[in-house]
């Protein structure tokens, strides 16, 4: 598989200092790459960097081999990189329909938008069933599905998911991870950051363990899960 997204020696952070230190990472096209690590390791910073919310101080980001360093979030979105942020990324007082339509905000072709709306409704029937309800009235799992529906409105090449299991009960967690697997089987490349390392790595074709802004270990998802040292340090118990 070829690399769809590459981070090349990236150093980045916020006003308080660098969080990522000369990080090099690649996301293979068609696969699921899962980044795990303790709190503060820089997992979410990677996603903010990829989505253009922050800029790297050093190094660069490439998508399909082209540099996307310094592009705005809107420009990155138009290239086909869509992020579903951590919990509560919907617009709570808007309806389900309005939220999903906001996913196509950058589209000017109304006919294309309507076609995408129909496709999304077929994939996620809840969008049509509860279209007039405010999203705040939905359960956590239903809100996550609406977030996925909104993300698919741009038919993304790369879907970036920030801790999709956060705040979900075990049953809904299973449903959400099944949806992630389905979206990947439908041909989408997925970059996943997940606190629940077992779930994330269990799903992933490529696993990355991050520690203090650097890659501690990478390999196949199963390979990382099976690493005894990593298991003890980050996964809580022998695997």
């Amino acid at each position: 598989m070829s690399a769809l997204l590459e981070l090349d020696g990236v150093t980045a952070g916020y006003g308080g200092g660098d969080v990522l230190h000369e990080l090099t990472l690649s996301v293979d096209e068609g696969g699921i790459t899962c980044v795990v690590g303790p709190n503060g390791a820089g997992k979410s910073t990677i996603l903010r960097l990829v989505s253009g919310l922050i800029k790297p101080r050093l190094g660069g980001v490439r998508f399909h081999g082209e540099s996307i360093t310094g592009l705005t979030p809107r420009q990155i979105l138009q290239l086909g990189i869509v992020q579903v942020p951590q919990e509560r990324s919907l617009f709570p007082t808007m309806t389900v329909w309005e939220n999903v339509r906001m996913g196509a905000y950058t589209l000017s072709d109304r006919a294309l938008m309507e076609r995408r709306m129909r496709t999304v409704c077929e994939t996620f029937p809840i969008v049509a069933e509860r279209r007039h309800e405010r999203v705040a009235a939905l359960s956590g799992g239903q809100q996550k599905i609406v977030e996925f529906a909104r993300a698919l409105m741009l038919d993304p090449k790369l879907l970036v998911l920030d801790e999709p299991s956060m705040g979900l009960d075990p049953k809904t967690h299973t449903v959400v991870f099944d949806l992630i697997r389905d979206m990947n089987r439908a041909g989408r490349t997925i970059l996943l950051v997940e606190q629940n390392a077992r779930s994330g790595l269990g799903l992933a074709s490529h696993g990355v363990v991050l520690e203090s802004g650097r890659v501690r270990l990478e390999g196949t998802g199963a390979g990382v899960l099976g690493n005894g040292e990593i298991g003890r340090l980050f996964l809580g118990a022998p695997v």
Partner: protein
Amino acid sequence: MTLILEAVVFGILTGGVYALMASGLTLIFGVMRIINVGHGALVILGAYLSFALLRSANIDPFVSLVITMPAMFLIGVVLQVIFIRPLKDDREALSVLVTYAIALGIEGLLGYLFTNNFVQLNAWYETASFAVFGFHIAYVYLFGFGLCLAVLGAIFVLLYRTTFGSAVRATMLNRTAAQLVGVNVDRVSAIAFGIGVSTAAAGGVIFGMTNAFNPGSHYDLISRLLTIIVLGGLGSLRGAVIAAVAMLIIEDVTAVVISPVWASFAFFLLLVIVLVVRPQGLYGIRVRERI
């Protein structure tokens, strides 16, 4: 009974004017999470612009809005780009200082150009009135209320019936998520600030026709406007409208039934009660701050 009814009607009509002024303030807070302490001064600036057009070109104050509202929109966009956009960290606190500085700047400029003497906008309908059920209503209040409905209606249509409005609401609700769906939040913020400031021009005309004003009149005005948006819920247009009308009705009825001395006290009592029960105000969204 007639006096109470008259107070209620008068409260609704003047409440509409305050709703118009407060709607701009709450729109700005909603989109940018900044407290525009300079909003009262911008209202007074709007009143002075109409005053200048009346004095120099004899343009009717309401007609002058065709000029002053676009002008104030541009002033708002420029102020946002120069003074507000650079604020990246601790926006809410710094914005108070920056917008207070803007207010002082406007006050100083108006004092230099127009002196500190009180002035008032004049037109035939300022004093003329008509009778309804035995009491008299000045035309200016009716026209002012009509203007408020038109401007507030236009804002509601903009927010709820246009793509740009969706972007504004999305930015108000979740700035980062709005960026991630492709909304240019800097552009939306500048335009929203411009719209908020242009409503100050409309509010300024009615304020200037119903009150004598000078460059320092913004202090009393901003305290009332802030009270209104806190009661209505910061960032809520609907809350600002309801709180403004409630404030004026309560004040006017209290003035008639008890005494004008207790008018403001009665409203502030209601404010305290509401905030004890609902700290986020009537229509505000409760947020938890991460520490």
